[in-house]
């Protein structure tokens, strides 16, 4: 095989040599075919680098098709053959002065794409000449050549002192593509902020109509950074841009929407009108034929809906899922349906959601149950909806039952008035069916919480305590047993004993420690233990949302970027220089705001030392996936400390402020609890598994000041 390849290369070499000197017309076709062959070999990763010198010898050709292939070959291999690349510089430079503009442009593009650092000196001069060329094709290539130069060697570009004339090109070049490319270079060299000034924006607006769809996206991005000084300007710009909302290209529409939204931020009323205006085009685009085109639009609409759900309350039908929508779109639609639910449309929405519960796609079915639960949680008078939710249990499907149990738990925590309905529904659940840890933990918690529930159910579960895989379920079992013990001591004493014994033997630190803690508390004083473990239940007023408003705002600042699709701010993933917009965001977040402590005075203040400790732990355990992202990624853990989330359970204080989804999945974080009784708990969990307050596992014990 190797031999054959070697032979073939040898053949090609000879053929190249034979053709090299010839300028004959009849050889043109032969040359083309030969080059085509070489390019094809290159593509199927046969190493054709050994032909480099022969190829260079063949550079003197007048046939443009051959030239193109040749240049393609050279730019592909120059990087690995810098010495040889030097040989073709001469030809390329000569071609940069050809009479045919296509050849001039082509040569210039190849020259600036060689990416050989010690050849850069030969590149600057042709680029400068190209900028003055009379043909737009050459000029636009030359201008992007500057950007390539800048990426390799920024000093060289600043030495040229050419940005002034590039600016002039943006404004004055008759060809729109040249102007757009010049703008591109400026954004790369000077950054968007330097361009978003009045002296620049006004003339660009004037020639806005000449740009093609791709350039428009860039121009609009510059406009979006522009900080207007007077409100009349806002209207001027919007008037200028309004027709772009009708553009067929979704990228242009989104970019326009971004400009509109950011411009009107200081004027809340106009901002709301803008929402009304942009709704129609966005709703059209989400029903695009191609899922991949629809997806970014749906994601952006999702962000807008979460930001101002009321404005979309009447459009809920657009968010109905089609049977063959891909699941990533369905998921977003479900969340939008949940967000826009209000007292008028909620029954329609819940009816629609109930349809999706039968979806064959398990995550979607579960999300639908979750959505119904969410609506029930938010609705002031949700009896009917709770009834619907509880009906899902009758479907007898494991995943649906599991999700329903989890929602029942949240429901009971927030709306104790549903206790009778929930109690009744729970009694129909076949306990052995529920296997999933989160659902089982929720079920056990419900059993513990609902005093009317038969404590003997727990006996079966305690028997298999040691076999229970999830520590969360074991923790809940301990707590549930203790709770029942306080209610019916004589009947459950034996049960509790078995539970505590099993817990103390447990190998998991948290389970073990909790068992010991309960044991000591009970031994110390049963009454006080009850005060601690089963205090007066306080219903939760609000759950810490997954999408808190400051997070939404942060994403909103990065409207029309990948951030919105990932739902992570740009600094968490993009290379630093690529997202200058994030600089402002984290700085605000870093200001220590002990909001959590203020809002919940019953909680023990978070000790600074401990906080520092946790921080240290996080930083150590948080190796950024990409080495160069050090600057900004490390800021993410700092944000983790910001206790601005508020409304969290005491024992979870630290865990809940965290944004575990910002961390790499494999990192672990340590949760510390220092309890007044002298018990100290410290356990580490995978960061991804750290609960938000909404599914915190420690709701059962709070620490009254009295202890």
């Amino acid at each position, binding site marked *: 095989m190797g031999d054959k390849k070697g032979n073939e290369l040898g053949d090609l070499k000879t053929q190249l040599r034979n053709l090299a000197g010839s300028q004959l017309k009849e050889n043109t076709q032969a040359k083309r075919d030969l080059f085509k062959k070489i390019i094809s070999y290159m593509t199927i990763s046969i190493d054709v680098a050994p032909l480099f010198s022969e190829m260079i010898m063949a550079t003197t050709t007048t046939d443009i098709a051959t030239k193109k292939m040749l240049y393609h070959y050279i730019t592909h291999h120059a990087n690995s053959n810098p010495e040889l690349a030097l040989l073709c510089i001469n030809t390329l430079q000569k071609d940069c002065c050809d009479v045919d*503009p296509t050849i001039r442009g082509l040569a210039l593009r190849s020259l600036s794409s060689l990416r050989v650092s010690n050849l850069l000196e030969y590149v600057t001069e042709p680029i400068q000449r190209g900028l003055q060329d009379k043909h737009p094709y050459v000029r636009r290539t030359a201008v992007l050549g500057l950007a390539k130069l800048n990426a390799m060697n920024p000093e060289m570009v600043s030495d040229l002192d050419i940005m002034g004339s590039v600016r002039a090109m943006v404004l004055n070049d008759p060809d729109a593509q040249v102007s757009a490319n010049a703008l591109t270079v400026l954004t790369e060299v000077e950054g968007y902020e330097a361009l978003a000034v009045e002296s620049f924006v006004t003339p660009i607006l004037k020639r806005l109509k000449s740009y093609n769809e791709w350039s428009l996206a860039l121009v609009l991005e510059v406009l979006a950074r522009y900080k207007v000084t007077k409100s009349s300007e806002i209207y001027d710009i919007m008037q200028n841009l309004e027709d772009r909302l*009708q553009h067929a290209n979704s*990228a242009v529409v989104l970019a326009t929407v971004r400009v509109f939204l950011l411009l009107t931020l200081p004027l809340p009323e106009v901002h709301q009108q803008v929402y009304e205006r942009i709704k129609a085009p966005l709703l059209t685009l989400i029903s695009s*034929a*191609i899922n991949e085109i629809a997806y*970014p639009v749906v994601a952006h609409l999702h962000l807008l809906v979460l930001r101002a759900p009321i404005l979309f309350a009447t459009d809920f039908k657009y968010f109905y899922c089609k049977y*063959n929508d891909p699941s990533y779109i369905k998921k977003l639609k479900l969340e939008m349906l949940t967000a826009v639910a209000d007292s008028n449309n909620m029954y329609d929405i819940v009816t629609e959601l109930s*349809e999706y519960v039968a979806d064959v796609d398990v995550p979607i079915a579960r999300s639908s149950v979750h959505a119904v639960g969410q609506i029930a949680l938010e609705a002031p008078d949700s009896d009917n909806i709770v009834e619907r939710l509880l009906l899902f249990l009758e479907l007898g499907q494991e995943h649906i039952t599991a999700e329903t149990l989890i929602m029942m738990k949240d429901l009971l925590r927030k709306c104790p008035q549903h206790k009778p309905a929930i109690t009744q529904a729970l009694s129909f659940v076949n306990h052995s069916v529920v296997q999933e840890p989160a659902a089982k933990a929720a079920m056990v918690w419900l059993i513990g919480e609902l005093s009317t529930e038969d404590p003997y159910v727990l006996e079966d579960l305690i028997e298999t305590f040691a076999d229970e895989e999830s520590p969360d379920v074991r923790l809940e079992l301990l707590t549930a047993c203790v709770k029942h013990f306080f209610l019916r001591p004589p009947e459950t004493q034996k049960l509790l004993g078995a539970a505590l014994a099993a817990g103390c033997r447990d190998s998991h630190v948290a389970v073990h420690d909790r068992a010991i803690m309960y044991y000591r508390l009970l031994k110390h004083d049963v009454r006080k233990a009850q005060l601690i473990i089963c205090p007066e239940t306080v219903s939760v007023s609000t759950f810490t949302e997954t999408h808190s408003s400051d997070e939404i705002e942060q994403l909103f600042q990065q409207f029309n970027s990948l951030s919105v699709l990932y739902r992570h701010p740009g600094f968490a993933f993009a290379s630093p220089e*690529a997202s200058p917009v994030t600089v402002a965001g984290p700085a605000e977040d870093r200001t220590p705001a002990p909001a959590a402590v203020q809002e919940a005075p019953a909680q023990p203040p978070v000790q600074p030392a401990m906080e520092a400790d946790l921080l240290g732990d996080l930083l150590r355990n948080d190796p950024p996936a990409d080495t160069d992202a050090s600057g900004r990624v490390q800021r993410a853990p700092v944000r983790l400390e910001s206790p601005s989330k508020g409304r969290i359970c005491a024992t979870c204080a630290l865990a809940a402020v965290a944004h575990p989804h910002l961390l790499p999945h494999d990192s672990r974080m340590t949760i510390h609890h220092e309890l007044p009784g002298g018990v100290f708990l410290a356990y580490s969990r995978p960061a991804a598994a750290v609960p938000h307050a909404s599914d915190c596992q420690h709701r059962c014990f709070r620490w009254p000041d009295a202890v």
Partner: protein
Amino acid sequence: MAHVAASAIYFLNLRGEIIVHRMYRDDVGRNLADAFRTQILQSKEQTGTPVRYLGSCSFVYTRYNNVYVLAVTKSNANAALAFKFLNELITLFKSYFGEFMEESLRNNFVLIYELLDEIMDFGYPQILTPEILKLYITQQGVKSESADKGAEVVDNKATLQVTGAVGHRREGIYYKKNQVYLDIVENVNLLMSAKGTVLRSDCAGKILMKCFLSGMPDLKLGLNDKLTVEKEGGARNDNKIIELDDVTFHQCVNLGRFSTDKTVSFVPPDGEFELMRYRITEGVHLPFRVLPIIKELGRTRLEVNVKLKSAFEPKYHALGVIVRIPVPKHTVKANIQVRGGGKAKYDAAQNCLVWKIKRCAGKKELHLEAEVELVSTTGEKKAWSRPPINLEFQVPMITASGLRVRFLKVWEKGGYKAIKWIRTLTKSGGDSGGQYEIRCN
């Protein structure tokens, strides 16, 4: 750098092997295709999102036939732009070599490199309009094995004067016979409950044009939509006025003139293009209604009763009506009777009873009755999810929205008279990402 669309573009086959790739910037590694294959294609975690973040790069991808087109970027890129670019790229490639699939890509390496060179430079999209690109591209697409593989060089010097003024049309086009075709194609989307309540319906329309016109013609289109009609001082009484919820136009339409005086005027590109898209939610006429009754009789039998009504005028005919009635997976056979027209059979591959009606006049009522026998499955408690009934049809000559062309005017310096052809067609939502669905539960 927010508008960089890609640092590299890959074309991969279904196994994740590279067919062609092109690097535009050096900021991403070269072994990304491996990451794509192992982390996305072979991963068990099927989230399916067409954007993934792996090893500090974002992978934006789409699939067409048996090819994945993948753009890789390191920045917080403009996602919509990236997707749009990939799609335009596929359309462009199709215009060069017919079908966009692995084989055709492999036959056209050189052309692909040439195209990739022109449409994007240093990660920034340049010009994707086929008309303009033709001026720079030397290679010809190989449409099939037998086609001529020789490249034909366009005389560049002669044609390279344009760009700028009218980006989408070059000068000096001449046709002996000046013709313009205009098609209104409407896709009706419907979501109906089993009881016949319309949960959601809308109509996504597009106007497709094919222009064979000489010179630089200026066209003006008049529709019976509310905006333009009102502007002209109210409609004549016999006209129905349509309210468009939203309109988007091809880039050739003068948007400025549309927003000031509500006329759709444009200098068309040569050949085929999509002039506009619109969406209508109010007053959509549903061409068909379906009333299903599906009863599960015990564990092994199913009784299906479907009534199909055509609601349009009797003088028109619907073509290629296909009703797909889902049945459970473990169906053994179905005993089907059809009254009123068409043929029906059980299709095991689709798990459907497929009822095909070649031609169906308006204001008709058709029935399908079927007894479906199932294998009794033991142990499996999973209830049948009762997927919705899906309808496919085409009705020429009508628009579900009632939209009509009032006039289409052509002006040109040369003063020729163009022949105009106007057609309308209403289709089920299927190919526009929509559905004509009737739920069964």
